[in-house]
């Protein structure tokens, strides 16, 4: 009884080894191709993140200049008014 149980265990283990070893595997070159692709994706994600920051900074700068321009136009009108009153 014990003998047959041992035999069964060994046979099962060998079967699983055969099943894992017999399926098709990618070559080293193909694995490198996948790694390169993943690296390119990660790099693109970093570039997009930097570009989005740059875009946000530019939007802030433009909004600030808009406000300054508006203030400048108001100042100019005020100076013209004061010059007339001089």
């Amino acid at each position, binding site marked *: 009884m014990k003998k047959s149980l041992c035999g069964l265990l*060994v046979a099962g283990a060998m079967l699983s080894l055969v099943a894992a070893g017999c399926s*098709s595997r990618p070559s080293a070159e193909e694995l490198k191709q996948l790694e390169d*692709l993943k690296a390119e*994706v990660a790099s693109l994600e970093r570039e*997009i993140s930097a570009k989005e920051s*740059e*875009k946000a900074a530019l939007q802030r700068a*433009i909004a600030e200049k808009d406000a300054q*321009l508006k203030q400048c136009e108001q100042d100019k009108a005020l100076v013209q008014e004061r010059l007339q009153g001089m």
Partner: protein
Amino acid sequence: MNVVRTFSLIITLALVMVSAVAAQEMTKDEWQRQINENTAKRNELRAKLNALQAEVDKLKKDDADKAAALKKCNDEILALVEATPESERAFAAMLDQIDSKINELARLSNQDLWARKGEIDDVQKMIDEARKNKLSLLPKYYDRIKEQQNRVDALRKSLEGAGMQTYTVGTWARDRDCLWNIAKKPAIYNNAFLWPKIWQGNKDQIKNPDIIKPGQKLKIPPKGDLTNEEKAAVRSYWQRKQAQAGTGGQ
């Protein structure tokens, strides 16, 4: 028998471990799936990056245009007040100087402020000068000069509030009034040696401290130690007296 059982158990365990490691390795199908997924993602990211770059380029152009418009507006304002960036810098430096002078005076005690009250007038002249410049019409300077004027007014007010009394000079025959005796009065300083304070506080109407006239209304500065200016005036007074005495003796 036991040896055989133990051996077969070890072999079984080793085979199970080897097959587990082999099962973790990527299959060709899995590789293909990941290649497809990552290729699609890369293409999507490339398109997104290109679109973002176009947006950023447009924003950069907008930013440059706004900067140019702002410069033009500022230049137009300077032209209106007939100023140049250099003259504006000089004007701003003058306002800084006024601020620093006012700050210096504001830190003084009432007594010291009284001794240096002439400097308040100097600051007032600087403010008046600044007002004549058309640059003072620019809001940023207009409000600043207004604030400076308020601070100078406050300094004058604090001088008035320093308990400045006045004293009307009586006659020598009746009151024995001279600067020494006036300073000695308990209601004034109760200290004759402080007479130079009255002299220096009334420089506009007392040229020679030995001569004051009945009916003259003298300002009495706040009591306190003689300032350096007052001490210097006393020294020069005594030197003059000695010189006169020397001349008279010859």
